[in-house]
């Protein structure tokens, strides 16, 4: 097999080897202490504006020649950002890329977990904007670290209490806080709470990178991930009255899309790969 060609003048996966080792050390620590935020010396990455670099740095640190990479943005493989990040890593690593969830060994994501259940051996890398779940109530970093150390998590339920008091139910729909391995409260990044149950006891390794705040955290395979709730207001995922307008799925996460100038709208799967595969199967059986 020919050695894979990468763009001249660049190191494999852009980052230099020393930086990658530094990030891998942080990752090992993160895996050893599930849900704990490990500080790391973040580097700059040439990223589309507004995407963030944390997930990219993690991907660059773990990607190997034999990986097959999938990149999703809000569930879609075909957004400008997803396409350009996929091209970036293909260019600088020569690895295979795919849009099929089951083919990927490494999935770089922002805002979603694929609908198709992940498998052992797969790695899911999340791009995280704000890693600290306690930040909303406690601006001091020194104090939040202490709160984590002492398992001082009473304030997390304040947020849920306020939701119920105000809306009659827990209205928090994204970045819904979880308790990892019965120990650390963690912000699962801005995924919809619809995806929270997928994190629980997943056979895949889940890695989280926050570039601006220079934090890495992880959920090792088969780890308990519990969404916080109240006994009389248990955790629930979003549900839709509609089915996907394309594939007809009634169990996927749906995006509302505007169809025309008259404001007509429909609901379609946010996970483009899932939707396409369902369509392909329907055509085969039809």
């Amino acid at each position, binding site marked *: 097999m020919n050695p894979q060609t990468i763009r001249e003048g660049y190191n494999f996966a852009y980052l230099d080897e020393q930086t990658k080792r530094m990030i891998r050390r942080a990752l090992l620590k993160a895996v050893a202490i599930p849900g704990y935020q490990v500080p790391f010396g973040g580097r700059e990455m040439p990223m589309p504006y507004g995407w963030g670099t944390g997930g990219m740095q993690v991907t660059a640190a773990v990607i190997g020649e034999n990986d097959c990479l999938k990149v999703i943005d809000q569930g879609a493989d075909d957004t400008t950002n997803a396409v350009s990040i996929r091209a970036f890593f293909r260019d600088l690593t020569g690895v295979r890329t795919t849009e099929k969830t089951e083919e990927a060994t490494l999935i770089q994501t922002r805002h979603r977990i694929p609908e198709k259940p992940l498998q052992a051996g797969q790695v899911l890398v999340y791009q995280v904007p704000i890693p600290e779940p306690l930040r909303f*109530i406690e601006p001091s970093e020194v104090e939040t670290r*202490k709160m984590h*150390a*002492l*398992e*001082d*998590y*009473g*304030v997390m*339920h*304040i947020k849920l*209490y*306020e939701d*119920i*008091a*105000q809306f009659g139910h827990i209205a928090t729909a994204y970045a819904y806080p979880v308790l990892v391995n019965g120990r650390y409260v963690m912000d699962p990044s801005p995924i919809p709470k619809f995806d929270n149950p997928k994190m629980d006891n997943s056979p895949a390794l889940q890695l989280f990178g926050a570039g601006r705040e220079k934090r890495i955290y992880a959920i090792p395979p088969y780890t308990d991930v519990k969404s916080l*709730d*109240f*006994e*009389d*207001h248990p955790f629930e995922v979003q549900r839709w009255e509609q089915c996907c307008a394309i594939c007809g799925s009634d169990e996927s996460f749906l995006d509302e899309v505007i169809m025309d100038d008259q404001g007509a709208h429909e609901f379609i799967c946010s996970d483009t790969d899932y939707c396409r595969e369902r369509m392909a199967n329907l055509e085969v059986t039809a």
Partner: protein
Amino acid sequence: MNREPILQVDNLTKLYAAGKGCEAVSFDLYPGEVLGIVGESGSGKSTLLNCLSVRLAPDEGDIHYLTRADEWVNLYGLSESRQRHLQRTEWGIVHQHPRDGLRMGVSAGANIGERLMATGERHYGNLRQTAQSWMNDVELDIARIDDKPTTYSGGMQQRLQIARNLVTHPRLVFMDEPTGGLDVSVQARLLDLLRQLVTEMNLAVVIVTHDLAVARLLAQRLIVMRHGRVVETGLTDQVLDDPQHAYTQLLVSSVLTS
């Protein structure tokens, strides 16, 4: 009182400079007893209160506390996690400025419920009911349960702070000028309420105040401080009606003339 004390303070010292802070303070506090610490500003009474409530490590001396489980603990020998646990389950701290003791960004109900949630209460309905019942007890309108403390008056904020502290039925409460900065009429009603709650709940209280009228109304026993040292101690009526130390005499007379 022939019961065991719940707090034993032995030779407590925290000095920032000579005469600044508190020096060689010793006393016992008994269950259900209200101890007043009086003195002018700068006398070291706030430093002492911060040391007692495990918010400021002393230079010297020990504080022993008898826990609800009947176990004597050396407060500064405990892990920080045990200290915090005591603070939110067995103690209360009522600050002079409500914004130091309240979460101003969340509703009154959440303020009262926080300690319960921190100690494992996971039933919204129970939290709600307990918050309403406490609002009643401190004479707050339960219709305001979802309003933020920023919309409350100073007196109401102080009532809310008291409810937030007492909701876990503490045994020991530290108060720092709890009626300071309030109108006189509001002050009087708040003092009545405090006195009633302290009696009903059989609370042990250490209250710091520069206001001898507050001390007389709430405290059974007084410690008079000056320049970081205790100059006189005794039953409140004794100290205020027949002060022995020249400084106490001055304090008492300045109240009478003002």
